[in-house]
Structures are given as structure tokens and as C-alpha cells.
């Protein structure tokens, strides 16, 4: 399945763009997506943390992705 992923903050710099498109095996979960991202962009390993939001909610590694999901890479936040 094709997943569109948005990137913010330092994640945008790491993937060199606001969004990227990945072709992932159907049923890939958040943990699998993180592994794929770290494989393609080793700089993600250097971050203090990396979370994934799906449809505007944080999701844990066992959450399964679907093709229409809005998937966002959330590097360490620093608002306030």
C-alpha cells in the first residue's frame, strides 16, 4: 500500500521535504514504518525520540496503518 507521510521540524530536514510517499506491505504497523524510516534516513536514529501520529492522534508501534491514513512524523516537540 502507498502511504503519504508528512514531516515537521527536524524531520522535514531529514527527509528533505514536507512529505514523502512510501510503498509499504499492506498491514504495516507504526513500528514497521519507524524501522523503514530509520533504514532510509539514518539521521532519525540520532533524535531524542520519534513518534508517529495517525489521523491527528499519537499511535503506538502496534497500530496498523491503512492507505488513506494521514501519517505524520513527530520529532521531539518544543513548543511553549
Amino acid at each position, binding site marked *: 500500500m502507498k502511504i503519504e507521510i508528512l514531516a515537521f*521540524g527536524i524531520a522535514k530536514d531529514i527527509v528533505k521535504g514536507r512529505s514523502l510517499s512510501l510503498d509499504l506491505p499492506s498491514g504495516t504497523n507504526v513500528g514497521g514504518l519507524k524501522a523503514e524510516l530509520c533504514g532510509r534516513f539514518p539521521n532519525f536514529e540520532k533524535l531524542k525520540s520519534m513518534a508517529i501520529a495517525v489521523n491527528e492522534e*499519537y499511535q503506538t508501534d502496534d497500530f496498523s496503518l491503512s492507505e488513506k491514513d494521514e501519517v*505524520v512524523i513527530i520529532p521531539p516537540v518544543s513548543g511553549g
Partner: protein
Amino acid sequence: MITEELRMIDIQLKDTPLIPQECIDYTTSDSAGGSTIFIGTVRNKTKEKPVIRLEFEAYAPMAIAELRKIAEQAKAKWSAEKISIHHRTGVLQIGEIAVVIAVATPHRKAAFEACQYCIDTLKETVPIWKKEIFEDGEIWVAAHP
């Protein structure tokens, strides 16, 4: 009633200067005895290194949703009457306001605790990112260990 609850929480992400009085006006009421307000401003240095300016980027719809969650939690836990949270995005100069949080509660101790909970949790969970620009480069705050 959900609509009633929504009316008591004011969340705004703005790319124009924040005005504390707006948050104060929103929360002040004839039935609450006090409001506690937190104002976060852009400091002129980080660990003694001069900062030129700051840039805030937000994943807006989720940032607003997370800010609302925080306000709802604080409202429930401390029986707050009203909560207003305004957060800035875009380019900020030194001294400009990054965030304003105002909480009105019937008892003042609760107002302090609820307000502190909001800013502490905001810094942990809300998808907003701050880039500090120095003379000689820039850095996404808190990105690396």
C-alpha cells in the same frame, strides 16, 4: 453538555502577535475568584549563546486538538471554569510572546496547578517545533539527546 464544555475552552494558534489581555478577558468571570496566567517569551540567549530570532512550526490541526485535550484534562482535574491557550507560529523576535495560558478557577491554588499542568504538558505533547537561529547557524530545539 459538550457544547457548554467547548464554550469554556479557547484554543488558538496564531501567526500574529499574541495579546495576553485576550486570554485574560476570555477567562475572567464574575464567578471565578482568580486567574493564573503564564506568558512564555523568546529569550535573548540559550545557554549564554545569543539568539537572533525564533521560528515556530506547528502541525496545526493536531496541535489544536492536543491543546484542547490538555485544557479539558486541566479543566476536569482542577474544576477550572475557563481556560484559554494561545500559541504563536512563524517567525518571532526576541521578547515576543510564544505562548499565553490563562486559567480561571474558583480557588487560586487550583489555578496555579492547572496553569502549570498546561504549560508542562504542552511542552511534552503538542506538535509544535521551535527553531533557534543564531549568528552562526540554527538548531531545532530539543531534537537531539
